């Protein structure tokens, strides 16, 4: 048995992991919108986000998965928790959790869901969207290719958008500081 005989990139147990992660995400999502306590909601959302990062890995998008973990779970959610701790939540926990239009809201969401179902069932190509389901890519160059789309002089379609995004972040920083500061 030589090293070359070792299996390379064997198929992962894709359906099993997909359903597992999907279940985690759905349950997490439901918990997010039903918990009284905002910290519990945040924890559920973190679980959802991490499961989604794992799904990204299954979709051969490792870089997006890494960004998801580092930015969403490590950055944005910490910000959320930080704010939840700054504001006292004891009072809101005892109050009514849903607003008066909850019925309308759910009805609207149901209509939207119906629309989705209608679209998905009528589309003929629906079930065959992954024609090369078994195809695997070398993950090795995913990051490089994304970088190429973002930065490269020749293939960089999104260079301008990238700069705009940095501007957006700058504006957001200033806005957040202006909003949150007690007295400027």
């Amino acid at each position, binding site marked *: 048995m030589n090293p070359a005989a070792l299996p390379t990139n064997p198929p992962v147990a894709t359906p099993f992991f997909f359903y597992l992660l999907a279940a985690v995400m759905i349950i997490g999502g439901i918990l997010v919108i039903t918990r009284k306590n*905002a910290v519990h909601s945040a924890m559920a959302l973190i679980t959802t986000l991490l499961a989604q990062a794992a799904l990204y890995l299954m979709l051969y998008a490792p870089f997006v998965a890494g960004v998801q973990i580092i930015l969403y779970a490590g950055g944005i959610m910490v910000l959320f928790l930080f704010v939840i701790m700054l504001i006292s939540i004891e009072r809101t926990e005892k109050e009514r959790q849903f607003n008066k239009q909850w019925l309308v809201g759910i009805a609207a969401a149901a209509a*939207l869901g119906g629309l989705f179902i209608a679209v998905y069932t009528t589309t003929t190509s629906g079930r065959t969207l992954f024609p090369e389901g078994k195809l695997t890519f070398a993950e090795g160059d995913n990051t490089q290719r994304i970088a190429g789309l973002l930065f490269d002089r020749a293939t960089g379609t999104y260079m301008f958008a990238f700069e705009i995004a940095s501007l957006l972040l700058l504006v957001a920083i200033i806005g957040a500081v202006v*909003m949150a500061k007690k007295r400027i």
Partner: protein
Amino acid sequence: MLDISTLHYLVLGAALFLLGVIGVLTRRNVVIVLMSIELILNAVNLNLVAFSRYWQGIHGPSALHGQVFAIFIITDAAAEAAVGLGILIAFFRNKETVNVDEVNLLKW
């Protein structure tokens, strides 16, 4: 079990999207509303990355536009969360509450 197709991801994305919409429309707590918005953005991201996977299957490994979009949306989400939570803190400081229902004046 069936092989997982793009549709599976789309359905999952749609479900998360709907959950987010329900959260935004029905909850009173601003923090949870913001979290629901994050949920919606993530549902979109999931779709985009799934499309990117599909596109890669057709056009080869360089067709990563969906993933680039997803990265932009994550950037957006960070900006949105920062500003939203900043507004939330300012609001809480003045009103001592985090209920959207009570944001019914143009001034405070």
